[in-house]
């Protein structure tokens, strides 16, 4: 399996007028391969979202770099974006467009071939059971319906890499399960998936490898088994707590 994402000592520093300089991401490095689901696990404010935003080219790294699908996030940001599907709590839908219009719009923005566009859109409409509300404006849809459209929007151009930033937050169990099932299917389709969460059960269910991130640093990376042997703990909650405690001691 070839490496699809290679993050190399990514650093993101902010200047906040009230708090001064803030180090949101501190020399983060990891790799993610095709057909792999890679989890970023950390508490709120650990730097997960900032890391994923740098990979999605929404933010420019202060230093370090990342290569996605062979493209550099700074120098070839457009090619990077065309290679990824990104979904987060902040990727809303255009309320005045219908799901069908949304999918067609984002397929075109992502350079999806016009000849195959309609076929692709309709297959996603069927796959995510959007038919019933495909012509209803997004502003009138329920949260669950919107999330289905959002996932379809993120994958409409059939990207090789999928980046999900806490995608199940605020969703009911059934919709969350639909999404998690879809992410599992992405692995079978040889997609490279980076998935951030602070829900242990999701990480345990989905991730082939997990990176525990805290205060902008990656404390450990490995499969669940590898993390178990590293910490001597069985359950992911315990593993997580153990890594955080040792991480806090290191930072102090």
């Amino acid at each position, binding site marked *: 399996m070839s490496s699809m994402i290679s993050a190399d000592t990514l650093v993101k520093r902010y200047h906040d007028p009230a708090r001064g300089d803030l180090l949101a991401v501190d020399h983060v490095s990891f790799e993610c391969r095709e057909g792999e689901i890679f989890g970023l696990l950390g508490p709120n404010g650990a730097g997960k979202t900032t890391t994923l935003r740098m990979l*999605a080219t*929404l933010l420019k790294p202060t230093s370090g770099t990342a290569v996605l699908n062979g493209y550099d996030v700074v120098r070839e940001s457009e090619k990077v974006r065309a290679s990824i599907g990104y979904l987060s709590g902040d990727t809303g839908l*255009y309320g*005045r*467009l219908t799901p069908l219009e949304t999918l067609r719009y*984002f397929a075109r923005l992502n*350079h999806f071939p016009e000849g195959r566009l309609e076929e692709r859109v309709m297959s996603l409409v069927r796959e995510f059971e959007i038919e019933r509300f495909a012509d209803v404006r997004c502003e009138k849809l329920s949260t669950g319906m919107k999330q289905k459209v959002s996932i379809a929007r993120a994958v409409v151009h059939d990207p090789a890499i999928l980046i999900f930033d806490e995608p199940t937050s605020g969703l009911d169990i059934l919709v969350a399960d639909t999404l998690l099932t879809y992410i599992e299917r992405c692995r079978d389709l040889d997609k490279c998936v980076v998935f951030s969460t602070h829900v242990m059960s999701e990480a345990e269910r989905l991730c082939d490898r997990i990176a525990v991130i805290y205060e902008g640093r990656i404390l450990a990376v490995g499969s669940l088994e590898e993390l178990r042997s590293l910490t001597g703990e069985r359950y992911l909650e315990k593993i997580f707590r153990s890594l955080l405690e040792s991480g806090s001691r290191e930072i102090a």
Partner: protein
Amino acid sequence: MRLIGTVFRTELRAALRDRNTVVYSLVIPLALYPILFWGIGEWFSFQQGSLEKQKSRVVIEEEARSPLGEAIAADERWRVSERETDALAAVSAGEIDAFVRIEAPSSDTGTWSLHAWFDEARDRSRVAKTRLGEVIEETDRALVEDRLLAYGETNETFAIINMETENIASAKEVGQTILARVLPMLLVFMLSMGAMHPAVDVLAGEKERKTIETILVSGAPREAILAGKYLLVVTAAFAALVLNLIGMVLAFKHMFSMMGDAKIQIAIPFTSVIAVLFAGLLFAAFVAAVMVLFASFARTFKEGQSYVTPFYLLMMFPTLLAVMPGVELDLRTAWIPITNVALLFREVIAGNFPWGPIAITLGTLLLTTAFVIAIARRVYADEELRLGSGGKTLRSLPSIIRRSRKRSA
């Protein structure tokens, strides 16, 4: 280019589904103003008609029976009331419209002296004053004629200057002059109003609705996204101009036709329309660039409105300068932004084409638009401002311009 078109078409579709955009950019110019003008015209003529139909109530106090008193009594437009105990109070209370006191004629000259009281705060009393003037003029002429006839003379004997005036301007030209006075200011304001809502909506509104990240993570270049949004604002501003132009001309046409003035014909020549549209398109590009620039700093719709509204209000000063008497489009005023555009509109609507100042106006418009677009691009390139994160506000604009200057240097 294809992606700019994709963004533009989608933004346009979304904008046309937004009630506020439709109201501000389409309904108000196309319907509200014509209806307003039509309503005012109807009300004006209705009021005028009712006043004309009403008889003027007058109390006449005469020392001796006078020809003027007889003329008023014979005129159907008057109703002579009985002597009031306090006629002045009756005028003031609106019970009568005029009080006229006529003294006996002087024994040596035979001249009648008259004193009249009106309450000009009331419409009916003002009408009475006009009517009294007409009656006096008519009576005076008849009396002079009688006296001259008694001496075997006529009016012509004593006429030293016989003046006849003629308006050489055609009804069309008079109409153009009227439009040239009124339309430029309205067009500048309405075009800006047409740009305001879409600019705030596609930039600040996008951050508020959390769709900014959705589009920024797409494979479209950021400049294409900005260009698509900018084109939408230009289109909205230009549409507001065109619709206002149509709406206002139709409204004025209707208003003047109701007033029944055949000496005024409301119409703009085809060449003037083309010139207004061409300059209007460039002006729409300028206003849209400024609105997009300011709205880029806002994180919410409300914040966006508070950023672009001062610009809209500031535009009033240079626009008002253009409607001041004596100010014309010349080689000096052509350099004043916004004033020059309003003056250009005025000149071309009036049918004048001073090509030098017009060229300077269009040139400055192009240069300032290019400058503002360049800054807007810098602002959109700023990560924090693009996403609406961080603490940057409109006050950061000078530092962004300084940084971009350094970079280009």
